[in-house]
């Protein structure tokens, strides 16, 4: 009977016996170097968010700048300050950085007033990334809530550009209401890719909305997945992690196959200023990407 009822045994996983490693280090490259960049394009996504395309000015520097999905940069607007922003663009788009930015504070409000051609500084990339290599050959769940689609867009690009490396891909996205949907012009493009399922849900529908209404976990109801052959990436507001990851757990996905990107206030990006501390973990160096098992072991993480 035991053989017939395939029961997933977490202890058989290779990395089960390894202790959670809170001191993994990101591969930092030239973190104190400022790349001068120019705004080449601005795309209005919603009332609060804009997508900025930046091009690094120096062609030589353009070649040296590369990043992995999930990493972030420090964006500096001279005279206003520096903010950590997840990269939303494709890693293959060399020398160009796409950042989706919500108007939230001094720096970002200033940036929303800037036009094409304005120059800024970019430092980085910083932090850990989603382990896209490890995920090869598995089903992928990409789940985002609200502004979480901004960091998730980089792995979406990676998965769609390396389509043959992955099995089924489910992209799930939810927001409060239809006016807050980001990148709505790209849904069709993603949806039409072979083996990619896209579902979008809103909490409050308006007259034009024809899709499903409810919380993001509703999209996962009745979904059939094989836990040990699936990886999940979850990006969104802190309150979302708990619900989505619990649901994923019920569906059989082990905690160390769920990856989340934590948000923290950051200032130096070099593991010094203590602002992003979660216990002895410096989010800017050891994060922002953690597996959910590690997050559960970090106090005050969410």
């Amino acid at each position, binding site marked *: 009977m035991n053989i017939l009822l395939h029961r997933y045994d977490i202890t058989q996983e290779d990395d089960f016996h390894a202790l959670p490693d809170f001191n993994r280090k990101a591969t930092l490259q030239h973190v104190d170097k400022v790349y001068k960049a120019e705004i080449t394009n601005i795309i209005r996504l919603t009332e609060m968010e804009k997508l900025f395309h930046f091009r690094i000015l120096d062609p030589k520097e353009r070649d040296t700048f590369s990043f992995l999905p999930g990493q972030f940069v420090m964006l500096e607007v001279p005279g206003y300050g520096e903010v950590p922003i997840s990269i939303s663009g494709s890693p293959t788009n060399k020398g160009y950085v796409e950042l989706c930015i919500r108007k939230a504070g001094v720096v970002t409000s200033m940036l929303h007033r800037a036009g094409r051609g304005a120059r800024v500084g970019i430092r980085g990339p910083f932090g850990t990334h989603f382990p896209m290599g490890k995920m090869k050959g598995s089903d992928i769940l990409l789940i985002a809530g609200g502004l979480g689609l901004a960091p998730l867009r980089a792995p979406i690009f990676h998965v769609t550009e390396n389509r043959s490396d992955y099995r089924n891909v489910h992209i799930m996205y939810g927001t409060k209401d239809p006016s807050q949907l980001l990148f709505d012009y790209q849904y069709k493009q993603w949806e039409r890719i072979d083996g990619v399922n896209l579902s979008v849900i809103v909490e409050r529908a308006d007259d034009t909305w024809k899709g499903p209404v409810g919380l993001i976990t509703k999209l996962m109801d009745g979904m059939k997945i094989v836990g040990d052959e699936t990886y999940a990436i979850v990006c969104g507001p802190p309150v979302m992690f708990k619900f989505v990851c619990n649901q994923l757990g019920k569906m059989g996905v082990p905690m160390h196959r769920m990856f989340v990107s934590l948000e923290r*206030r950051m200032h130096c990006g070099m593991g010094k200023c203590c602002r992003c501390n979660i216990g002895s973990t410096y989010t800017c160096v050891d994060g922002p990407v953690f597996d959910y098992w590690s997050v559960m072991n970090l106090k005050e993480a969410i």
Partner: protein
Amino acid sequence: MSAKTLTQADLASLVGDLVAAGTRVVAPSRTGVGPLQHLDYREIKKADEMTLDAGLPKRSIKELFFPPTEVLFRWKQKKNDFELQEVETKFQKTVVIGARPCDAAAPEIVDRLMNWDYKDELWNGRREATTIVALACDGQDKSCFCTAVGLGPDSTKGADVLLVPVKGGYHAEILTAKGEALVKDFGKRFGEAKSADEAGKFRETARAKVEGNLKVDPKPIRTWLDGHFEDKYWGEIALRCHGCGACASVCPTCHCFDIVDEPEGIYEGARRRNWDTCQTGKFTLHGSGHNPRGTQNMRFRQRVTHKFAIYPRKFEEILCTGCGRCARACPGGMDLLEILSDIGQMAGGAA
């Protein structure tokens, strides 16, 4: 390690020699007038500005290595473009005379953080240019607890030379290469060591005086902190705390900072690194309005846990030298000694 004797007169001449050689000399000195008068570390030009027998200065020597505000670079805006200007930082050769052992130990503890991943050039540059001549303490007051964190009023940690007061002068222990260099450069000021016994007695008396203030063992405290993050003790700990951050600004080991662009006029300014503290609400506030450390209790728990559990786990050092300044400076009466003693009791250690 070797020992020498330094008389009062020779110490005064040493200050003169150092100043004449173009070295910056920093020592405890009375400053301010009337009710504002207090003892502080500051640059002195003459030996008589130095006050070595009046106890612990108000602030620590942290700011010699990590100034409260410092310019990282300057920027100029031009229409759509900007220009960055490097700021040249000179690391002036400095000798600190009369640093209390709790202050001398602090930079060595913070060295670990400043060098663990990215190496902080500004910190290291100043550290290398500075020689610390520490002065054994006779125990300041009831807020001292250096012996409870593994140091002591005669601790040599972080010091290049330790002076122990004896009759007519000081018994000097030369501890590091930097200390040796100082003795070599100004050899005529140092005499043969002859009062090791008297110095030993001074040290014992001072130790006994401070040990009476707080008797706890940091090891069980660390274990307790690791396992009691959600303890109800944290629920009421910070009722008296105003969240002003005075404790962090007088702390010799607190090292949190903020990086801000400060305008100087309309089109130019500087990016500065300023001291900051985890005790303010905005310290961890997210752009979305969510705050992972939303209450003052959580923020104070962070302060205690960071010093006695998190930092030791990562860097094998307690992020506290027991100077007691936080307890003296607090306007609300938060007392780290009381907290450590409470935790020590809960942890089952001696209290």
